[in-house]
């Protein structure tokens, strides 16, 4: 099932085209990185996806709904954090949490849980105007989490956060995805952070999509190294065998599994080899752990001369 379907999306501001025939999909249950240089059109696309902006042309379906025409129904199921979250300055943190919870048909207690998860619960009675940028960001994330959304759209979620808060947020995204199957779209410039959570990527530059797909597909297509986790009856023996392969650059054994990094362009050869070794070492399952976003970004965006 596709969570987000975008076809030939175009959007202009005062005659200046910002998005030109943007096309991509994000399947349900994925954590998708939305990557591109400044001014690529990421924020505009996210605003079209949530129904804050109206498309000029093209098709946009989010969770099977048209964001502009069926925005109210859609936003019941989607949480969003904007790039520069703006709030009514005079309002208290608790007031915003309370009213957003009510609009989402949830209790204040649920809003408080979101506030605790993001570390803003100690500032409930403070006016929003008194919060630092980092805590405004945390408040935005808390508001996005109210109502157990099926889809989270996070625009630069780690901006203004300290390193510990960044790690907590990334862990939260991972947990939401893993435990609750939430689809997440994360737009960020911080590629190493995205690499930690994304299993899907959409690359956009100059208002056009350059590439999109699962990390596994993209890593194969662009010859970027990939990491696999293999559970086997004899992991150490399997690891000794794998380290001898010329295209395996790293092997790690732990918790009954072997983590293997395969150089770009050799994934098919590796999987064939594993098929043979699998019988000897009783391989139980193989899981794709992730690819490296930085070289993908380099090959898809920078090599085309569109990165700023």
């Amino acid at each position, binding site marked *: 099932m596709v969570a987000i379907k975008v076809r030939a999306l175009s959007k202009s*501001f005062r005659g200046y085209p910002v998005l030109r025939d943007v096309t991509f999909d994000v399947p349900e249950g994925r954590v998708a990185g939305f990557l591109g240089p400044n001014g690529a059109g990421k924020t505009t696309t996210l*605003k079209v996806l*949530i*129904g*804050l*902006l*109206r498309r000029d042309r093209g098709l946009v379906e989010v969770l099977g709904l048209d964001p502009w025409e069926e*925005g*109210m*129904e859609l*936003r*019941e199921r989607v949480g*969003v954090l*904007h790039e520069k*979250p*703006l*709030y*009514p*300055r*005079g*309002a208290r943190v608790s*007031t*915003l949490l309370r*009213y*957003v919870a*009510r*609009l*989402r048909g949830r209790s204040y207690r649920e809003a408080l849980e979101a506030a605790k998860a993001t570390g803003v619960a100690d500032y409930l009675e403070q006016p929003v105007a008194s919060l630092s940028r980092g805590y405004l960001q945390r408040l935005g994330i808390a*508001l996005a989490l109210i109502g157990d959304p099926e889809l989270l759209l996070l625009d630069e979620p780690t901006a203004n956060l300290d390193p510990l808060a960044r790690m907590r947020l990334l862990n939260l995204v991972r947990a939401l995805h893993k435990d609750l199957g939430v689809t997440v779209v994360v737009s960020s410039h911080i590629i190493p952070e995205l690499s930690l959570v994304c299993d899907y990527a959409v690359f956009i530059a100059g208002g056009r999509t350059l590439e999109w797909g699962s990390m596994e597909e993209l890593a194969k297509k662009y010859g970027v190294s990939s990491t696999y986790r293999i559970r086997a009856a004899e992991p150490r023996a399997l690891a000794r065998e794998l380290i001898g392969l010329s295209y395996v650059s790293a092997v790690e054994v732990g918790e009954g599994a072997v983590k293997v990094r395969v150089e770009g362009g050799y994934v098919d050869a590796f999987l064939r080899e594993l098929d043979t070794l699998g019988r000897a070492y009783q391989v139980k399952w193989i899981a794709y752990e992730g690819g490296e976003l930085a070289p993908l970004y380099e090959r898809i965006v920078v090599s085309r001369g569109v990165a700023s």
Partner: protein
Amino acid sequence: MKGYAGKLLYRVWVYQRYVHGTLLGGIVVALLILVPVHAAAAVLLAPTVLSSPGGGPGLGFVASATELLLVFITVFMVASYAGDLSGGGGQLFLSQPLSRAGYAAAWLVATVATPCLVYALSLALPLLIIDPRLLSALGLWNLMRAVLEVAEWGAFLFLLATVSRSRALVVILGLFAELLLPWILLLPMALFAVVPGTPPYSVRVFATVYVVLYPSKYSFFSQGGAVLVGPGAAAAEASTLMAAYAVAALLYAKERMEVV
């Protein structure tokens, strides 16, 4: 469909409570000024008003003066709506399950309907409590036309705010249109008033448009056949215009209002 409509209305109800909460300070300050002023005026002027045959102009002067406060309140409240649209509240709440028209409707009620209602009650209730004849002396029609005029311009400013999102434009145009323009427009008509006989048709049309835009000033033209419609019709046309502005604002919000 019933479920959808129910959800829609519930969310507008929830959101208008939030908006009223944010504007509560202004409403309370207005009440703290209006109620004592109206009550004091009623007490002090009651002997004169009730003893003179026509009721005397005293209460009318007080009501005209406090109406200025209502003008300021609505203009600045509509401007705060424009500020919310461009400054963050719109982005936050329109990212929630609230329709664009519902968002605008909540603000329309809070910035135009509520101040007008509060003003009307702050004037009518003290008069009714002190002596119901005071309300008759002031003239219920006069009170209604004054409130209608502010509501009509409030709805126009609301439409302007929805389209432009400019606080400055709302404040400047609002204060100009409600405080200065009615007197500026009287100048050309005053020139015709010195000429004997019925004014030319074009002047009567102009005067009719004037009383539809400023129904509380109908009495300026009540003699000499200068207006083509009666006071009731002028008020009805002003109400229609107000409703048209409100509907246009809600339709614009539904169909075109974007949050950049």
